[in-house]
């Protein structure tokens, strides 16, 4: 630009560098901020437009049956919900599996792949706390996915003047089961994603473990039931999060099903395995990120 040229549109006044004298929050507040950002990122918020497509399409598909049920209930009027609160997640488990498998790498692989993990580890948050905060984001995202149809069904059931006490009891049980399932899915998908810097591997690995594993267990359970060896089917059910969920759903809510856990002992075993699996995976995550920090 020449000296006589027209001045540019605006003028930036350089005030010089000003030190920050405001508050600095502790590790808890930092972890909470990371959880919230992670939850937003899991749905593509705060990221590129493209990354919002998959989670929201999956969420829409996941809600579609609930919306249809709501429509039927409102216009036709039914004595009970055509699908149970807890059964819903079991019916849409493929969508749930894809959601968790696809969004876990957003929270775990991305920082490892792009090296941004270094920037987190150079800040006050400890490696273990970082890992747990990331898992917290994935847990909340999974719960949003699992519980939003339950909420829709519950509201519709109340509007349809179904029995409040009964509906509330069923919905509450579904929430407890959803929490157990979400914890274990978060653990498994998170650990796989944290061990892979490539998104594709993480997605395929998680889907293989969750959906293919569940398919195998279902096949074993069917054969066991057909052969009259229910005990084998019950033990097989201990091996994947989905079959554990289905077993508890059959035992606690609906009755029936293929080789559900029989007796209190087996039910307790199902719960313990779900919780233990989650705890083991979370511990694995903490160890994994401590190793990353020390590299």
């Amino acid at each position, binding site marked *: 630009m020449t000296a006589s040229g027209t001045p540019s549109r605006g003028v930036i006044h350089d005030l010089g560098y000003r030190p920050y004298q405001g508050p*600095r929050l502790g590790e808890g507040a930092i972890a909470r901020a990371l959880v919230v950002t992670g939850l937003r990122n899991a749905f593509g918020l705060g*990221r590129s437009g493209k990354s919002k497509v998959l989670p929201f399409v999956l969420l829409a598909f996941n809600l579609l049956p609930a919306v249809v049920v709501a429509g039927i209930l409102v216009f036709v009027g039914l004595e009970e919900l055509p699908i149970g609160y807890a059964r819903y997640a079991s019916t849409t488990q493929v969508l749930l599996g894809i959601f968790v498998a696809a969004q876990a790498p957003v929270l775990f692989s991305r920082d490892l792949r792009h090296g941004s993990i270094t920037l987190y580890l150079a800040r*006050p948050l400890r490696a273990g706390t970082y890992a747990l905060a990331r898992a917290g984001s994935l847990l909340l995202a999974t719960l949003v996915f699992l519980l939003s149809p339950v909420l829709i069904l519950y509201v519709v059931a109340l509007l349809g003047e179904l029995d409040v006490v009964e509906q509330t009891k069923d919905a509450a049980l579904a929430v407890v089961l959803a929490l157990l399932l979400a914890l274990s899915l978060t653990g498994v998908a998170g650990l796989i994603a944290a061990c892979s810097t490539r998104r594709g591997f993480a997605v395929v690995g998680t889907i293989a473990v969750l959906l293919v594993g569940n398919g195998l267990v279902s096949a074993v359970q069917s054969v066991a039931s057909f052969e009259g060896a229910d005990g084998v089917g019950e033990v097989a059910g201990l091996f994947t999060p989905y079959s554990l969920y289905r077993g508890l759903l059959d035992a606690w809510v609906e009755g029936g099903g293929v080789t559900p856990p029989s007796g209190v002992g087996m039910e307790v075993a199902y719960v313990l395995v779900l919780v233990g699996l989650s705890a083991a995976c979370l511990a694995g995550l903490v160890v994994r990120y401590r190793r990353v920090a020390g590299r």
Partner: protein
Amino acid sequence: MTAAAPAAGPTTAVVRTEGLTKHYGAVRALEQLSVEIGTGVTGLVGANGAGKSTLIKLLLGLVAPTAGRAEVLGHDVVTAGREVRAAVGYLPEHDCLPPDVSASDFVVHLAMMSGLPRVSARERAAEVLRHVGLAEERYRPMGTYSTGMKQKAKLAQALVHDPRLVLLDEPTNGLDPAARDEMLGLVERIGRDFGIAVLVTSHLLGELERVSDHVVVLDGGRLLRASRTDDFLDATGALLVEVLGEDAQRRMGEALASHGLVVRPRRQLLAIDAAHGRPDLHDLVRDVACDLGVGLVRVQADHHRIEDVFGTRGAAS
């Protein structure tokens, strides 16, 4: 080895290490490092594998030392790693920016990861991005950035929480000459105008000569030398002469030698050892050149360069 503290030692040490040692199995990454680093800009020099990155990791409290201790801003890096990391900014050498996030969002997020409340984080991020010179492009995804813009974004995240010390690992790596000058200017401003202590590594020694007040030289995990940059650049006492003409350098060299001077050729220059302390040396050079009929291009005092330290190992300890 007891390393000398900087000659004109700073009164307030920002970093202080005593016998700091880190072994990875059989690899001795850092060996008995005792050094003090003060305010202003300090250059950290060393070849690849000299222990620069290990030192930075130790100073951030990310790895525990095998032996010895280190204090950063008065905090022990082993027992108070969190306090250290809250007060230190770090610019890593390698890529660390997610491509699908804008610099603005990312710097705000990392400010919050350093404990700033959301509103303050936004203000600080805007201010720091302005200081490093990222204008409208701060709202674009960082995957679309040039290397220079990426380095600025990395610098912004290192400064956003107003640290008292920044560790800059090869901030000029991969930059073109114009972007490198801009980055060096920023490093200088951070140390002098912002009042933030800087520890900056580079394998280009000329850069460090330009911006740093002190230089710490590591070699094979050991301290080779730590002193003021000026001390590295002191005059050697030799006089450099460049002459022009047919076979000028040889003829000039021989003529000067015949006057009893010690002359060594150095590329296109002649280095005259002036240890004899002849006060009329400049006049003599002029007269000899005149007699020989060669063109005298320049006569200048010879200065040390930082890389000379690598040629005379151990001379400084």
